[in-house]
């Protein structure tokens, strides 16, 4: 099973982005997704910068995919999308049907987590159009994934979001700017001050969601590391880890060690605690509320 690193969803400073990718050549990662997927106003890095990082990672033996925006509205955003798609070197991850439309007939591409694929009839058509890999929507659980994988078009790889804060929603509204009483058009890039997003708490002080510009994420980390054995058996080809500001080296190493049988999956639960300030969840995998943590509770119930 391959490990991928999803696109950085936060707005990190240029230096931090380069430093992040500088560490990846020596890591146990196989695939790296690069580019801005949340907000087109974020321009710390230009396409040329992403391509430079891509070159460096490719030289280190990593497969590089250029990812694209989930919400496309303005012509300028479509023009940027067009540029990424015609880069001529790297495969592209589509996060909107617009990207599928532009990628169709141009060779292989990846269906990102923000394309709604809930059945094999959808998958079949998109595969015919050139989809080589498919990132399963985060809300789909074990039962549905099993059925989808059992009947998927031959040659189509599957990728599952297995570790990180869940990308849950996108809006035209910028929630980070709103929280600072700033209009979106004068946001002053307030999201740059929150390298892991801005935490939204319930009134009884429970960390609930993460505001990341126009995106909303879970505060808890979706963690399927203890399910890796099952994912391998099911035939998941790639598991995705979402970048976060701290602990990536440790997280990647833990996942690889579990996959290679050097580490008991249960050991990671404690090992990864420092990188889950608000805890973790796996409810989606059980077909339940995504925010719940079921595996650990089951163990407590039985033990």
């Amino acid at each position, binding site marked *: 099973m391959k490990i991928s690193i999803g696109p950085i969803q936060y707005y990190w400073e240029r230096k931090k982005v380069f430093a992040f990718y500088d560490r990846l050549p020596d890591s146990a990662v196989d695939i790296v997704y690069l580019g801005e997927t949340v907000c087109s106003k974020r321009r710390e890095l230009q396409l040329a910068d992403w391509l430079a990082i891509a070159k460096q990672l490719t030289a280190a033996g990593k497969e590089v995919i250029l990812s694209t925006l*989930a919400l496309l*509205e303005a012509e300028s955003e479509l023009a940027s999308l067009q540029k990424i798609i015609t880069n001529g070197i790297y495969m592209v991850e589509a996060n909107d049907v617009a990207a599928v439309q532009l990628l169709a007939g141009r060779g292989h591409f990846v269906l990102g987590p923000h394309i709604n694929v*809930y059945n094999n009839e959808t998958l079949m058509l998109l595969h015919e159009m050139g989809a080589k890999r498919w990132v399963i929507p985060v*809300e789909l659980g074990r039962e549905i994934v099993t059925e989808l994988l059992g009947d998927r078009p031959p040659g189509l790889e599957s990728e599952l979001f297995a570790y990180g804060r869940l990308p849950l929603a*996108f*809006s*035209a509204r910028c929630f980070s700017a709103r929280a600072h009483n700033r209009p979106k058009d004068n946001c002053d890039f307030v999201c740059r001050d929150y390298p892991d997003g801005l935490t939204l708490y319930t009134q009884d*002080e429970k960390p*609930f969601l993460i505001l990341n510009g126009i995106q909303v994420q879970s505060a808890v980390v979706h963690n399927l590391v203890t399910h890796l054995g099952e994912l391998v058996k099911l035939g998941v080809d790639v598991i995705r880890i979402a970048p976060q500001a701290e602990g990536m080296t440790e997280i990647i190493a833990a996942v690889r060690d579990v996959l290679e049988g050097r580490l008991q999956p249960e050991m990671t639960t404690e090992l990864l605690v420092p990188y889950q300030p608000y805890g973790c969840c796996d409810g989606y995998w059980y077909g339940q509320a995504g925010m719940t943590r079921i595996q650990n509770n089951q163990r407590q119930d039985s033990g």
Partner: protein
Amino acid sequence: MSALNRKIELVCPAGNLPALRAAIDNGADAVYIGFRGDSNARNFPGLNFSPAEVLKGLEYVKKNGKRLFLAINTYPVPARWKEFVHTVDTAVDIGVDALILADIGLMRYASRTYPGLRLHLSVQGSATNRYAITFYHEQFGIRRVVLPRVLSLAQVQHLINKTTVEVEVFGYGSLCVMVEGRCALSSFVTGDSPNSAGVCSPAHAVRWVETPSGRESYLNGILINRHKTEEVAGYPTLCKGRFRVNRHVFHAIEEPTSLNVLEILPDLVKSGVTAIKVEGRQRSTAYVSLVARTLRAALDACFADPENFVPSIDWIAQLKLLSEGSCNTLGAYHRSWQ
């Protein structure tokens, strides 16, 4: 004064036969409905139509020279595929005027099995730009797209200029803040989402708790809002709760408010939209009647004399009364909302 010669379709919601009749009687040009169950994005207990009721509704709509659309706009998973296909077949047999679909696989089935069947891309299909619309048009021949409530008025206008597909926009009703069809907030908290179960913040997960200082609303154990005793406590839709971000407790995602385009109606009309849609298949017959009647009057006045159109105080008052939190917004149509 120059009257417009192009009409805009007023598309109203109905959750049952009385609401359907009320919509038609009060000026709707088309009504959209769904079958009972989770094949559509308003899967509420006691709501929606059996096939026999759809047929009855269709008869009423036809008798009045209007049109009936049927939404099958959730996403079928493999175990449900056959059932959804059957749902499409049933709707076609009954003879509704258009199917409102979201799922790519289901659109492929419908367009291949029933060439010539009128397909509308549901708002749940999440098409916010011209390339996405082109995809659905080229692949399945969709004739209309319902735009997600994330585009500004200028963007709507631009899209209309760039596409040959009819454009339907939301004009009134509850406001989805997120891009429709791409929001998993509800399943994150409750296990059920609009995509998978046709619901958002479902009633089965709601719990109200009375406290000495007022009422608290919970969604599957998550505190969505606290209301003081004198405050009206609205339904705990999770994106419309009050939360703390940094030091402030506020409606961090969105206030309880309803979309209302009355103010920009002439601009919308001039932009070339084909249809204006009212949200709310879950609403009462009285609600549907009043909204249909008000928007009918407003649209007629706007057609007659778009240059001098001013929303009447009565219309504004009527619609405000029906709004969530008695509050109206232009939503994403107006850039400052974003």
